[in-house]
């Protein structure tokens, strides 16, 4: 069993709290993604696991052994650095062989050579073995860096944004390769990224980290459909979820969420108590851009919005709409030409909507439940 367990780990750099009481359990042979914006503490987390940083408080366990104070070379953990950190003066073969030479007892030259070739074959870099990093393409360097991490048989492998510097298309290709690789390796993988698509695509489970704190740990589908809070919902999805500030209003015992132009009624029973507590401060409605429907798709909706801008992306089009001074983004199929300044009927699919409380925590995620009802028009003044 080679699981990784972090227990109440904290780390501070001067005035910056990089990790704040982080507890995580990464299961044996799991593909675990740590997702978060730049500065969230992702890299510090990885460096604490491998031993390049020592936490101020808390413990790190690998395979049931406390490794909090041990040297990185003694942890049986491999890493692919964000900037790859290949040895520029060494050939690909020597880069791959270097970790093996440091092993004690040191494997024989023949054994080392065999292992290097095996890894090179796995990563399809055999023809490059005699080249230096400067003469490789971005994708090839990427593979060499991964190979150098894999060449020694470790229990756990760490990836620190390994695809961030590649071109968009190459990133998509390498993503699929990594997924295949992990399946063949049968190892525990911890993968850090700021790209939610990468995380969604690769991970068995995703941990969203922000401000050094764990926001949520769960499966990709779950994290998309049932984010724990506003921050998680905002982090996952591109373009990001539309957040609309609403007032919590009670009329004749009927609770509803009100906004200058729309009202959300028929709130499910479970949400009534927490929402009632927000009567003064208000709540936030979260609607994903793909749940905003325009024009013909909006049916007979009475809500009309002005088009601010249209961004055709090829397979889909982002339309920016104005809703009472706020920009709402809609993700629509291509083929319909929308023009700036035209007014379009707009509807929300509330079956995927979320309601967040004042502190950002999720009060309600519809997740297929169609009970919320959208009313259009200014709410009556009381």
């Amino acid at each position, binding site marked *: 069993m080679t699981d990784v367990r972090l227990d109440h780990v904290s780390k501070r750099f001067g005035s910056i709290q990089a990790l704040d009481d982080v507890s995580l359990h990464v299961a044996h042979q799991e593909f675990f993604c740590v997702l978060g914006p730049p500065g969230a503490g992702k890299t510090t987390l990885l460096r604490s696991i491998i031993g*390049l940083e020592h936490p101020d408080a808390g413990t790190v366990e690998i395979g049931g052994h406390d490794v909090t104070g041990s040297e*990185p070379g003694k942890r049986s953990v491999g890493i692919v650095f*964000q900037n790859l*950190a*290949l*040895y*520029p*003066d060494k050939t690909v073969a020597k880069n791959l062989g270097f970790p093996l030479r440091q092993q004690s007892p040191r494997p024989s030259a023949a054994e080392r050579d065999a292992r290097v070739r095996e890894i090179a074959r796995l990563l399809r870099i055999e023809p490059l073995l005699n080249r*230096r990093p400067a*003469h490789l393409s971005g994708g090839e360097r990427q593979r060499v860096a991964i190979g150098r991490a894999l060449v020694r048989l470790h229990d756990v492998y760490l990836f620190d944004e390994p695809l961030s510097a590649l071109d968009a298309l190459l990133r998509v290709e390498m993503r699929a390769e990594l997924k295949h690789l992990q399946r063949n390796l049968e190892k525990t993988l911890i993968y850090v990224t700021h790209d939610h698509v990468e995380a969604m695509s690769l991970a068995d489970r995703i941990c969203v980290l922000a401000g050094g704190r764990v926001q949520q740990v769960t499966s990709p589908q779950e994290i998309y459909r049932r984010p724990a809070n506003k921050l998680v919902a905002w982090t996952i999805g591109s373009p990001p979820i539309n957040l609309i500030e609403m007032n919590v209003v009670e009329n004749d015992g009927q609770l509803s969420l009100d906004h200058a132009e729309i009202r959300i009624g028929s709130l499910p029973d479970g949400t009534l108590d927490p929402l009632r507590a927000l009567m003064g401060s208000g709540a936030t409605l979260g609607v994903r851009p793909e749940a905003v429907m325009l024009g013909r798709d909006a049916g007979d909706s009475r809500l009309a919005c002005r088009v601010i801008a249209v961004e055709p992306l090829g397979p889909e089009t982002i339309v920016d709409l104005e809703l009472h001074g706020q920009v709402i983004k809609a993700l629509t199929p291509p083929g319909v030409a929308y023009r700036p300044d035209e007014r379009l009927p707009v509807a929300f699919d509330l079956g995927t909507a979320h309601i967040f409380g004042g502190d950002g925590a999720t009060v309600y995620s519809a997740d297929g439940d169609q009970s919320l009802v959208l009313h259009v028009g200014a709410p009556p003044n009381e």
Partner: protein
Amino acid sequence: MSSRNVSRLIVCARVLAVALFLVILLFPIFWTTTMAFKPAEEWAPTDGTTYWLPEDWTLSNFIRVLNIGDTGGFGGIIEAPLDATPSIIRSLIAGIGGTLLALVCGTLTAYGISRHRAGGRHHPFSILQMRMFPPIAVIVPILFLWTYLQLFDTVHGLALVYGAVTFPFVVWLMLSFFDEIPREIGEAARVDGCSRMGVFVKAILPLARNGLATTALFVFILNWSDFIIALSLTDANKTAPVFLNEITSASTGREFGPQAALGLILMLPPLVLAVFIQKHLVRGMTFGAIKR
């Protein structure tokens, strides 16, 4: 005047300026080289003739200064014996010794500062300050100290001072080279299983070897050409530059020929060294280490 003529004039002026600069720069080398091959009569003729090139090419200056044969005397005058060979050997030992000392200590110090912030914020700067005052300012106390430690007039004593004087120079040159090497390379080596010293020797130093070569050349030239420290700290065991300064004779005053010959010989080691490490003097080896 048309603009075409103006621009031609500017080009002419530029060529002239460069030529003038080159003459000033190259004349001493020309003088030394020709003088080294002139017989005694042509060194500084009293009749006012100027010999731009030696009329009578001769190797006698070299033969005399290195004491490798009989020159047969100059115009019947028996010259005082000259032998710069021991002083050249002493210069080599002191120069190389001092350079090695400064390189070893300075490189390790620079690595410590670059990677582990050794010395905090202020000490690295005070190392540079050591380089800011002239060595002559502290030469008298060192003279006393060296006499007491019985290092005065010894080659190893001189090497120690050379090492100390050029140490800050090495630290500051190597620091900039180490700073250019991505931290992750050292970290990768640690993860790969190297000890801390192993990281330095196996991963970092191979990357810094261009810098190391450049630094070694600079420091050796500094030590090799030192005059003032050697003048103060030696007596009988002179180094070559001090010896050169003292080549005089009662009959002719300054002996320009042997001085020039020795000068020419002293130019050789840095030149040879530079040729050897020339390919390292070009930087850019770290390219490809990290993604851009």
